[in-house]
């Protein structure tokens, strides 16, 4: 997977575009999944930006092109920020964003390695409900990536055709 400012400005309007082919034979399940997915966006613009940063970092960790190219509507992540997320370089982000990204860094493959203090650093900023929302959104970003990567042989991501 490669990343440039150009493809950072595109491609899917939301995660639905990437996931729809996986549910083609299960329309009712697809509708319920979309409804569930829509509830994952939580809080004000700052909390939604945290979710977006973490989602992108998880996509980068999984090398999941289809999830990476999603740009969640209403969130703003610059091209240079996306490149930093791709490289796993959180230094340029705000302290509370780095705290959230520390969780995202471990969630996919080192979830038992997440410490109480790392969670507390996020909880101190966004509270209990915000922390639950962020962790849930990250967990399902992880699920989507695993899903998409696993199924990519059968359903190539739309970007593969670009």
């Amino acid at each position, binding site marked *: 997977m490669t990343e440039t400012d150009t493809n950072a400005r595109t491609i899917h309007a939301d995660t639905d575009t990437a996931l729809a082919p996986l549910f083609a034979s299960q329309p*009712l*399940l697809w509708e*319920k999944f979309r*409804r*569930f997915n829509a*509830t994952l966006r939580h809080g004000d613009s700052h909390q939604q930006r945290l979710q977006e940063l973490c989602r992108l970092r998880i996509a980068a960790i999984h090398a999941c092109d289809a999830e990476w190219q999603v740009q969640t509507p209403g969130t703003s992540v610059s091209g240079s920020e996306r490149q930093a997320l791709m490289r796993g370089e959180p230094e340029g982000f705000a302290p509370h964003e780095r705290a959230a990204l520390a969780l995202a860094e471990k969630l996919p493959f080192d979830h038992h390695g997440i410490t109480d203090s790392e969670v507390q650093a996020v909880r101190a900023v966004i509270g*209990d409900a915000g*922390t*639950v929302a962020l962790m*849930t959104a990250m967990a399902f970003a992880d699920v989507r990536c695993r899903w998409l990567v696993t199924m990519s042989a059968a359903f190539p991501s739309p970007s593969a055709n670009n």
Partner: protein
Amino acid sequence: MSTRPRVSPPQGMDTANFGTVMQHLPDTINAFFDLYADFWRQGALSVTVKEMTRLRNARITDCGY
């Protein structure tokens, strides 16, 4: 790994567990259970096979919950 709950349940709930903590996001957990129920009901695989894969996944990810 934590040995104690990392977030508190909403006011009025005593014990922090998956069910109570997720009540911070009632729309999300209700939509999840609606989806999850259909996932178990639908599809080509039997419930037995789904349960085996669920348990194996829980072991691999070391999730005692």
